[in-house]
């Protein structure tokens, strides 16, 4: 049974996404639609990546904004100072983030539970302080990137495709990890670390590897995002609101599942956009997101995908594990 309906539907969805930018002549709100999709893809890429440590291994990181910033600022600086296109340096930024993730993981993963969460917040604050005072990358004033030479619509389309690649790559990576022995070990760590260790799993190594791996697509997304913004400030990457979104989106969709972060990202970005469209104001925006979370978690305590699976009600189309 190679060709399941699920494969067909997801394939068709992907084709539709690939074709969307070609609809320019028929779409009045072309730039707006593409912009919303870019933001969705970015969050899918980042939360699916975060899910490897935060969902599979159960270590809630509030520090992934650091890798987001690393991707943005590294590719941004290479663009400003050496003229290298962020599209080319995004994978490099991902690799550097993996290296930094290893080092940071070595230290922060000595803690667990609330102490781990706090250590990742500390990381976020320290990085914020560092970038705010580092003139090479513009400090608190920020850094401007050269504008893309392409016309606006073509530039949008290229950001769209780059972010789509990051999103698909990140989901695929999460899927492969989930189905591997590495993923099985991470699930054991999430449930009972002592038991996992006694079973013969090098839990420390697994956790550090998961943390490092989870940084890759966050930095890639950061690089592409920076390019599309053309103006970088620390708060763009390192705000507490962004740190929270890394956690809230997977929790809403179902942390530890492959489809969960995707669903959570689509829902939160979607509700955000709708409420901005209707209310305009940022305060109501937050209220709408909060209300969504509250209502969903009341009925789906394990997140949408998690709870549906528990009750054996998960539609096959959302069963990606």
């Amino acid at each position, binding site marked *: 049974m190679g060709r399941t309906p699920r494969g067909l539907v997801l394939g068709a969805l992907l084709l539709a996404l690939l074709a969307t930018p070609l609809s320019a002549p028929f779409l009045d709100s072309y730039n707006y639609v593409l912009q919303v999709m870019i933001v969705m893809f970015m969050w899918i890429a980042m939360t699916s990546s975060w899910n490897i440590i935060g969902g599979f291994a159960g270590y809630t990181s509030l520090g992934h904004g650091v890798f987001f910033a690393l991707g943005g600022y590294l590719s941004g600086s290479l663009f400003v100072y050496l003229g290298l296109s962020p599209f080319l340096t995004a994978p490099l930024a991902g690799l550097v983030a993996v290296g930094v993730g290893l080092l940071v993981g070595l230290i922060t993963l000595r803690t667990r539970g609330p102490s781990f969460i706090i250590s990742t917040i500390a990381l976020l604050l320290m990085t914020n302080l560092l970038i705010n005072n580092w003139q090479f990358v513009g400090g608190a004033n920020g850094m401007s990137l050269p504008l893309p030479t392409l016309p606006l619509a073509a530039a949008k389309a290229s950001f769209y495709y780059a972010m789509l690649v990051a999103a698909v790559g990140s989901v695929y990576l999460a899927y492969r990890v989930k189905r591997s022995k590495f993923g*099985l070990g991470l699930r054991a760590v999430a449930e009972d670390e002592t038991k996992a260790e006694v079973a013969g799993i090098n839990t420390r190594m697994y956790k550090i590897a998961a943390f490092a791996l989870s940084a890759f697509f966050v930095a890639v997304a950061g690089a592409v995002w920076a390019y599309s913004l053309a103006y970088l400030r620390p708060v763009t990457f390192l705000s507490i609101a962004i740190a929270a979104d890394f956690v809230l989106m997977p929790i809403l969709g179902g942390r530890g599942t492959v489809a969960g972060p995707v669903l959570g990202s689509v829902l939160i970005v979607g509700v955000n956009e709708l409420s901005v469209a209707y209310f305009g104001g940022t305060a109501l925006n937050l209220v709408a997101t909060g209300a969504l979370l509250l209502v969903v978690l009341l009925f789906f305590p394990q997140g949408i995908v998690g709870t549906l699976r528990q009750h054996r009600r998960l539609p096959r189309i959302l069963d990606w594990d």
Partner: protein
Amino acid sequence: MPLLEVRDLIKDFGGLRAVDGCSFSVESGSITSLIGPNGAGKTTVFNIISGTIKPTSGRVLLGDADLTGQAPHAITRHGVGRTFQIARELGDMTVVENMVVAAPARGLLSVLRRDILARERSRAMELLDFVGIAHLADEQAKNLSYGQKKLLEFAAVLMPAPRLVLLDEPSGGVNPALLEHISARIEDLNRSGVTFLIVEHNMELVMRLSHTVVVMAHGDVLTHGPPDAVQVDDAVLDAYLGVA
């Protein structure tokens, strides 16, 4: 020849000395029981051997290898398996996943392979069949009864084919008919060369299975020897009745 040797183990929990100069050895190929009243320090000794807690002082030797202070996963890889007094299943995983987790892959390339390989599943099924819960293979472990969880843990500890198995109260929560079955399994495995160290309160089982019995009280070894000698030792009786 001793397979396992613990020497002068001491473990302090704050002001409480849970293990107090405990020394004994487990002969290769034997079934050795570690008995003693509640709070004697038996589980703490297990925790030290398997590396989940570090001793205040003393050594744990396995053949030529010094296990003292090694990480639990490293000790497991030396061929030492253990079960927990209170069964500790990974509830959100299936029974088969619990089995496969107990024999983790080593090395980068094998860790990247499919979570459950066909041969792992068939070995898991064999062992689950061996303890009589093969029909629960794809059930979530949290849905098992307590006795079934103990059986799962017993089967899982055998997955990586350990040399030495530490069982902490294998009879706990298991019905008498099944207990017969388990003790027969322990004897089978022992005949095939697996060494056992068993903490157990069921004296009938201890006396029947063991080659050697080590009696602990107040963190130290009171006496040790063949079951029939230990059974008639007055000091042992006193320790159990709390006279000593």
